[in-house]
Each structure stands twice: as structure tokens, then as C-alpha cells.
């Protein structure tokens, strides 16, 4: 197949003329189908990578709102680290609907890390209750320093050599009660 490009040298109205066989031999595919459509660029638009905001539809979100925090009033925002490990971007998180996310997706199956959540029974007066705790650090009995990660295999360690340090968080039950897949959910 022979193709030829002829450039019309006009400074004010540069134009690229394409001449030749516009159909691939033997395939029947139009050449222009192989090239993506060119979108017009807005010269005044700020590159999104330099913006502090994400735009999703007609709403704007501050990227800083995604930073995990541990506040004295026990309010906690999203822990993004497990999702970053999975290669998800901030925009993915904002555009994710509840029903499309695997409930186990935020857990690393090999190790626990700082800011992960753990659940355990506690004794409260004459009752035993379930507590949800955000992990702050891990302590290995034979070591003086605190660690930020711990292999999940140590959870089954019965010798008591491993300790999890953290802060109990407050949860509230969603008022709708039923959500997404028809299961009640607990929200921060």
C-alpha cells in the first residue's frame, strides 16, 4: 500500500491533506478508524494534576479530604493506603459506588498495618462488647521499638508475644438500615 502526505504550507491556515488508499488492503478497515478522535483543548483549563480539587460531574472535592486522620473527637476519615496499594486512584475512590466494591477489598491479606481496623471483644462492666479499633502501632514483646506493620500469621500466636496498640473508634448505624446489597451497614 502506498500513501502520501501533502502539506499545504499556509501559515494562517495550516492544513494536512491526506491522500492515498484510505482503506487497508485485505482488511476492509478504514484508516481513520485506527486513530483516536482529536478533542479540542481549552487553553485556559488548568491541568487537573496540579489542582487541589477533583471534579466529578458538577461537584468539586478537595483532595485533602482523602487524607486519613485520627482526631481527638474520634472522627475518622477514609483510610486510603489499602486502596493505593491496589493501584486505585483518588478519582476511582470518589466515583466508586458502594455496591461495586468488594467488601474485602481494603484488607491486605498478608499483613496488618497502622490505620487498619481490627475488631475484638472487651469487657464493659457486666457485659462483653465488640469494639472496633484503628491500629496505631504493633509491639513485639522481645523488641523495644514499635512497629507499623505485622504479619497476619501473628494474629493466631497464642503466646501473647504480639500486641496491637490502637484507638477505639465511634461508629453509627446508618439510618436507612438497608443499603446497597440489602445489608445494614455501620458508618463512621
Amino acid at each position, binding site marked *: 500500500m502506498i500513501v502520501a502526505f501533502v502539506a499545504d504550507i499556509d501559515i494562517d491556515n495550516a492544513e494536512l491533506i491526506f491522500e492515498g488508499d484510505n482503506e487497508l488492503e485485505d482488511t476492509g478497515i478504514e484508516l481513520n478508524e485506527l486513530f483516536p478522535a482529536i478533542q479540542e483543548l481549552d487553553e485556559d483549563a488548568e491541568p487537573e494534576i496540579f489542582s487541589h480539587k477533583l471534579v466529578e460531574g458538577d461537584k468539586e*472535592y478537595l483532595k485533602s*479530604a*482523602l487524607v486519613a486522620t*485520627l482526631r481527638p473527637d474520634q472522627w475518622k*476519615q*477514609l*483510610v486510603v493506603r489499602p*486502596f493505593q496499594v491496589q493501584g486505585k486512584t483518588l478519582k476511582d475512590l*470518589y466515583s466508586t*459506588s*458502594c455496591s461495586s*466494591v468488594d*467488601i474485602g477489598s*481494603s*484488607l491486605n491479606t498478608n499483613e*496488618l498495618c497502622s490505620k*487498619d*481496623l*481490627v*475488631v*475484638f*471483644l*472487651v*469487657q*464493659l*462492666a*457486666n*457485659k*462483653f*462488647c*465488640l*469494639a*472496633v*479499633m484503628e491500629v*496505631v502501632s*504493633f509491639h513485639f514483646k522481645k523488641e523495644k521499638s514499635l512497629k507499623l506493620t505485622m504479619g*497476619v500469621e501473628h*494474629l493466631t*500466636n497464642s503466646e*501473647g508475644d*504480639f*500486641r*496491637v*496498640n*490502637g*484507638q*477505639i473508634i*465511634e461508629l*453509627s*448505624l*446508618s*439510618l*436507612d*438500615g438497608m*443499603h446497597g446489597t440489602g*445489608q445494614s*451497614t*455501620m*458508618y*463512621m
Partner: protein
Amino acid sequence: MASGTEHLTQAQFILKVSASLVYPVAVVPVHSDQVTSNVNGKLTWRINKVNLDDILNTAWDLLNGEGDDILGNLLLLPKIINLNVIPYKDTSGESIYSLRS
């Protein structure tokens, strides 16, 4: 929880638990527009209630262990003095995720 000074530190809120007693739990991100409770943040996350129910049952079953182990196991559990910390409440204010001893 000691509060000898005006400024509380993170260490005063820290609970230390044996690793053998904890169960990891997964969270799912959710935008607050999808939440009808009084969440005041733009983006938060949720825990599936079924997950917590399952963990509660599993933790209690394992605590019972075999025979007389339960008495020794109960002593291992952290004791919470501040009654306001937990238990969690449902929408009507009733305690959830708690078991009477």
C-alpha cells in the same frame, strides 16, 4: 483515661490488646451523599454490619474454647472503664454488639 494536663495526647487514648484477640475488618469507601446518618464529612467509609455480626459470633465462640477455658480466656479481654466509649448504639439508641455476661 488520665487527664492531668489540659492537652491530651494520643497515648492517653491508646488501648493495648493481645494480637491473638483481634480480627481484621475491611472497610468500603462511601461518599456522605449516600449516607443518611449524621455524617458530616464528604468522604467516609462503612463496615458491613454482617461482617461485625459474624466476628462477634466467632470471637465469642472461640472465647468459649473447650470446657473450663472460658474463665481464663475472659481474663485476657481488655476491660473498659469508661462506659461512654462503647457499646455502639442503633438508630433507636439501643446498645448493639454487646453480650450480657
